[in-house]
């Protein structure tokens, strides 16, 4: 297949960026989207030009490194699919494709399609953990976890932290990410002791990073490569209000 690409090029965070047009030809429809960009970059390097910088790591949809907005959709048009798992057969021969970085003021562009998502790491650092005594391993099944709760925890823990929810949100909110990270700990018995403190800390760090607020467009859920449900946002809303309302007791 032959494609016409419009790719956002930006030297660094200070520089002004712009779209540049590239034509790629003889692309196999079995290639992934990133492999198609690899082909482009090889051509650019051979031609003595700067290759397009983009984030990638596992290329099997589980690491959350790849991050690009393809024709207005973070990770592209497919449901529950990361950009690395998106195949070129989903596009048409001769199609024009606009490729942009994940856009959010809290995700500064490092170069081209690479953005700095450490704002999400700082939300995790503020409370996305369980304090435990290290030492010898505890007995397996020492703490009973009901199946229904472990299922919910696994659904929430499926979040790979890629930031597509933030990039897709018309309000630039990080609520799907934060609520999933809260839920997978808050629903388990091991997470109970620090539940209130964690909920307040992570939500307030999210606000501090400048992320927006949810107005229920649900673009986040639609963009999420792991189909994390917006019901976690609703629960976070309630849990945060409850935690704040009862904070005076602590």
């Amino acid at each position, binding site marked *: 297949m032959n494609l016409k690409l419009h790719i956002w090029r930006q030297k660094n965070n200070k520089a002004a960026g712009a779209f540049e047009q590239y034509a790629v030809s003889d692309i196999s429809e079995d290639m992934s989207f990133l492999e198609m960009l690899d082909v482009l970059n090889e051509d650019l390097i051979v031609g003595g030009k700067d290759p397009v910088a983009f984030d990638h790591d596992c290329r099997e949809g589980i690491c959350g490194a790849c991050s690009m907005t393809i024709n*207005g959709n973070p990770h592209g048009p497919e449901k529950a699919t990361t950009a690395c798992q998106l195949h070129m057969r989903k596009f048409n021969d001769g199609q024009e494709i606009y490729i942009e970085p994940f856009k959010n003021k809290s995700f500064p562009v490092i170069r081209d399609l690479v953005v700095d998502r450490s704002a999400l790491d700082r939300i995790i650092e503020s409370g996305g953990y369980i304090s435990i005594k290290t030492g010898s391993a505890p007995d397996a099944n020492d703490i009973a976890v009901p199946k229904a709760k472990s299922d919910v925890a696994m659904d929430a823990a499926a979040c790979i932290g890629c930031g597509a929810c933030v990039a897709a949100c018309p309000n630039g909110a990080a609520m799907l990410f934060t609520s999933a990270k809260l839920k997978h700990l808050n629903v388990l018995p091991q997470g109970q002791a620090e539940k209130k403190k964690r909920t307040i800390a992570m939500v307030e760090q999210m606000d501090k990073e400048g992320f927006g607020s949810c107005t229920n*467009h649900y673009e986040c859920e639609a963009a999420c490569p792991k189909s994390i449900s917006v019901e976690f946002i609703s629960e976070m809303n309630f849990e945060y209000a409850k935690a704040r309302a009862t904070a005076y007791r602590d």
Partner: protein
Amino acid sequence: MLGFLKSNILSKFVVAITGIILVGFIIGHTLGNLLIFAGPEALNTYAIGLRDLGPTLWVVRIVLIIAAILHVITTINLVRQNKKIASGYKVSNYKASTFSARFMGYAGLTILFFVLYHLAHFTLGFVDASTFNMEATLENGRVVHDVYSMVVIGFRNVIVSLFYILAVSFLGLHLKHGIHSMFQSLGIHGKKFTPMIQKVAAIVALIIVISLISIPISIMLGIVGGQV
């Protein structure tokens, strides 16, 4: 007291709770207005009944005014923050967002201006003082403000009616998204409940729009108020 404005989630709680109050008012107001189809006696009796509530009426009014002010300032504050952080794409391509969701702000501001005009027109009598001073005599002999004629004469003005129809249509869009969003904001959700409340929100919004729009249309067509 306005400390909640610093928190996105608490702001959303305030928007949802004030939204519930305002939706409750709209439903009550719509039901009351439909009395126009029962004739002058019914509407004028209902109107003077509200006035006769005295202090209770003022408590309701103050609650509504506070709810409306909080609803507006909180959403404006949230939108300002969201505009600062979000930036659009070259190609905008929505997968889930609805028109009513994206239109919330424009609809809300139109409704705000409409409500101010509507109050000036029918509650404060700034728009047309001559119709505001009309009197009607009820069957029990009591002389009261002739709300029925005021509404009929008001809506015979095509521009007033068209603005009303436009604002009420926007209100419908606002409610379609707002009624189910308030549950999500307050943490009330469920695999069956959420799709159900989305449908209920759309149906309630549609019923309100049809009910309210039927009034100016009936008046302009002469079906209601022919004798005024």
